[in-house]
């Protein structure tokens, strides 16, 4: 591996490729400020890619966290305008079940009014007419403006827009160190995980937007940011048994929300403080608990098929004197290390919600811009993020409409999520995908009930053909005629797609075992029949050497699950 040191210089370096960091990159670039963003994994590798996808109305925080509620309600309206293609306007209900305090509803209504969160009480009959799967024993229903958001695709959209405005977005770039000159942080030492190359990125300002990892980043500069990584486990069920976000009308607690998103419904979440955002697992009793709570909102919930379980770590900022982690504020905090620690050149932003990412970005960029003497106003609340099929709110039928319009049934690589060959090849070409997860995040490939049984093999082969064509300048046509031929010689290791495939199968298993029973277990056995019995992937020799372009096993981005 090459380890030459490359020097880059920029006005602002952002650490963290989640919603907040990307939002800040776009905002900075739109104001004409030179910006580089580094992310150790793929974009959304952290918490942005591991949440339930709720666009908050603010309802969940009206009592416990009123400031956060108001911010959510405000940003909710803005996001629907500036990024409609990533948002489904499902609406949301807060319902009082027989297990909830019936008087809580009145407090809830008052608090909504006090925090400017739009709300109206509707009759139980009306709610059941709209959502017949809901528990008929609910006694009160409050309607709010919750929605479902695609945090993966929106991140790619924000990143594209940021790039168009001149920002550099570097994924698979791991920050190994922050370099101080006296009382100022002046640069970061960054490793490109694909090439092993070390880069020194000098910056006038560094924004620590690493979320749950913000404490680890601050520590690199010898500073302290107390982030409590609050692990939340979620389960995606293979059915939209509701088309409205359903919340329990009570103080926020474990397993009290169901979010319909794309083809699934997600039940969340648990909240367990973990010592390290890179080391956590999903406990079987968390899963059992979530399933049983789901049954209270939707009778028969446990009979649906659980598709996958995952956990994300909330970036909760620990103030003094708070003991219960669920009581930590969901509001965000901007830490100016010059003021707090006497160390210039570094700002940290922690806490907050996906729903408030734009506001957080605006606030931190305002501070940086002022210090750089830039007076261009923020335009992210008005300027629409380009891209997507149409500038309208997303709806479930989009993919199907696309496939029907293009008569692309024969081009489907992932039948579950209706992803075509063209979409997979686009995702590969645009991102240079370093593993199949990158393609998954951009296209939803492999997120359906077959667990990637069919499409993983296909996507790995397409990736492999794309790579061969690129490296050997051989045209491998995919929708026409001709015979792209490249004759590999025996000195070459395994087909590169095979390593990709093997890694994906292994990594995905970790997320599946927690919810593997019933039809999912049966599906897993079918996938074993395909990959072991028919394809014999276990019989292939291990790759001769590591493929430097595949970022699959690097410790910096390996999350250890203990199932």
């Amino acid at each position, binding site marked *: 591996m090459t380890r030459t040191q490359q020097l880059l210089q920029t006005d602002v370096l952002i650490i963290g490729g989640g919603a907040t960091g990307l939002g800040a990159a776009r905002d900075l670039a739109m104001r004409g400020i030179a910006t580089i963003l580094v992310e150790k994994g793929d974009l959304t590798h952290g918490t942005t890619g591991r949440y339930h996808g709720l666009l908050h109305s603010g309802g969940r925080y009206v009592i416990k966290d009123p400031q956060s509620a108001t911010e959510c309600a405000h940003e909710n309206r803005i996001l629907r305008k500036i990024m409609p293609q990533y948002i489904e306007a499902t609406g949301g209900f807060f319902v009082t079940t027989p297990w909830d305090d019936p008087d809580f509803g009145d407090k809830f209504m008052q608090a909504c009014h006090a925090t400017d969160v739009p709300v109206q009480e509707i009759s139980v009959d009306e709610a059941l007419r709209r959502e017949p799967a809901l528990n008929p024993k609910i006694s009160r229903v409050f309607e709010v403006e919750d929605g479902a958001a695609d945090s993966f695709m929106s991140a790619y959209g924000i990143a594209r827009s940021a790039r168009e405005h001149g920002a550099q977005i570097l994924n698979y770039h791991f920050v190994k160190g922050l370099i101080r000159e006296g009382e100022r942080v002046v640069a970061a030492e960054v490793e490109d995980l694909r090439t092993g190359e070390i880069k020194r990125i000098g910056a006038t300002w560094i924004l620590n937007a690493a979320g749950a990892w913000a404490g680890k980043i601050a520590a690199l500069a010898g500073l302290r940011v107390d982030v409590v990584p609050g692990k939340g486990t979620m389960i995606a069920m293979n059915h939209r048994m509701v088309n409205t976000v359903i919340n329990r009308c009570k103080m926020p607690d474990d397993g009290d929300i169901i979010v319909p998103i794309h083809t699934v419904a997600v039940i969340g979440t648990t909240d367990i403080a973990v010592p390290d955002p890179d080391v956590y697992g999903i406990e*079987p009793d968390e899963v*059992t608990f979530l*399933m049983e709570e789901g049954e209270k909102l939707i009778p028969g919930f*446990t009979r649906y098929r659980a598709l996958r379980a995952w956990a994300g770590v909330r970036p909760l900022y620990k103030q003094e004197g708070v003991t219960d982690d669920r009581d930590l504020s969901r509001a965000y905090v901007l830490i100016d290390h010059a003021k707090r620690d006497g160390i210039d050149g570094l700002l940290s932003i922690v806490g907050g919600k996906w729903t408030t990412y734009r506001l957080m970005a605006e606030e931190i960029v305002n501070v940086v811009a002022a210090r750089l003497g830039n007076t261009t106003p923020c335009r992210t609340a008005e300027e629409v993020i380009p891209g997507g099929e149409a500038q309208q709110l997303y709806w479930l039928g989009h993919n199907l409409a696309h496939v029907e319009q293009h*008569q692309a*049934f*024969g081009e*489907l*690589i992932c039948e579950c999520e209706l992803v075509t060959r063209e979409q997979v090849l686009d995702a590969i070409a645009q991102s240079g995908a370093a593993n199949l997860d990158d393609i998954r995040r951009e296209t939803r490939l492999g997120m359906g009930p077959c667990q990637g049984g*069919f499409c993983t*093999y*296909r996507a*790995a*082969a397409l990736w*492999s*053909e794309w790579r*061969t064509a690129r490296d050997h300048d051989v045209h*491998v*046509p995919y*929708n026409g*005629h*001709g*015979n*792209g*031929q490249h004759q590999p010689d*025996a000195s*070459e290791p*395994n*087909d590169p*797609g*095979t390593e990709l495939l*093997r890694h994906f*199968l*292994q990594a*995905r*298993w*970790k997320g599946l*075992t927690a919810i*593997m*029973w*019933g039809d999912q*277990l*049966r599906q897993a*056995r*079918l996938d*074993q*029949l*395909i*990959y*072991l*019995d*028919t*394809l*014999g*992937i*276990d*019989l*292939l*020799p291990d790759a*001769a050497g590591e493929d430097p372009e595949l970022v699959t096993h690097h410790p910096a981005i390996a999350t250890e699950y203990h199932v």
Partner: protein
Amino acid sequence: MTSRMIVIGAGLSGLMSALALAEAGLRPLLLAKGYGTTYWTGGTIDLLASRRYPNMPLHTALTHLIVAQPEHPYARMELDGIAAAVDRFRTLTKAAGYPYVGGLERNVVLPTALGALRPTALLPATMAAGDVRLGGEILIAGFHELRDFFPPMAAANLQAQHIPARGVYLTLPDGYQRHDYSPRSFALWFEQPNFRQAIGQQLRTLRGTATRIGLPAVLGLRDPLGVVNDLQQISGAQIFEIPTLPPSVPGMRLMNIFHQAITVAGGRIQIGSEVRRGLGAEGVLTHIFSEAAAREQRHHVAACVLATGGIAGGGISTDFRGTVHETALNLPLHAPESRQAWFASRFLHTEGHPIFSAGVPTDDQFRPLDSTGHVVYANVMVAGSALLAGDPVEDRAVSGLALTTGWHVGTLLATSLPAQLAT
């Protein structure tokens, strides 16, 4: 209603059992929810290629297993029982014009669609030229339109294992473009002489120095051997099929052959009838209840073969509380205690995952046992993946176990229960 011989399940084990019973003149009724896992597998018969018995010929490995695992179904059949089932299968497929080659002596190694080298005991003659020992350069050819077969990937992996190979894509002749394609549509096209001619010519042009050409296993439904012969004539190279993702055309061929043979011998196959429960008295199963079109149908049972499969086939189901359940007759199972113990941490774990070894324990007559070791129903026998037999995927024994136990149990039942059947 008169009592009947009932076979539950339409996979290889159920089909072999039904054939044995039909040929014994017992007019079995085969009930199944669907067509079974036959359509999911590649059509080879894998008897054993286990990591536990490495580096030895198949015959020796089977002998070792029989000694080392006396409760394994293979040990209960012994080599003679295995051989008898294999013989019957070979005569059946040969008579149907779809002969299998290979046997109990040693495994043949064939390339997979991923370019791995996979051992198997019996293979259709249409796959025989894939045998890696034949040497020479291999051309792997497929179609972009068939999304489950990628020649360059298979070829690259073969190359990495020092087998000269190239991967190419063929062009669909004019008039064959569709909005969608399936393995079955390709199989039907290969039965057309014009299509074969066009593809054979392309293969001839592309083959270069290759002496053998591997194609996806879609070379016709009714007369694949004829298709292979024809393509060999035109291309000038040996042709072989490589199984790929479901639905499996070789599986469809087998299903057709069995359907014909069982029906001719007096059996009946009723697909779409899921058996939901059984009723017994004094250690004898008297009735089973199947469901079709939301109605329950009651069958009076003389004797019964349970061939519903394992977790893949649907014979064993599980739930989120960790319960493991035999779905047709609610027979006792051996399974790991709790969900925590079901899985190893990696998908490709060499020891397999404990939950996939769940199965119905039986006596040496293949009759189901309860936890105290007593026979649950004296007139029920278990075959195939529902049996307690380790993890057949890890042992590379899925189809072999199904085929041999199915035949063995069918013949055993036909000879061992004359008294009940006379009534």
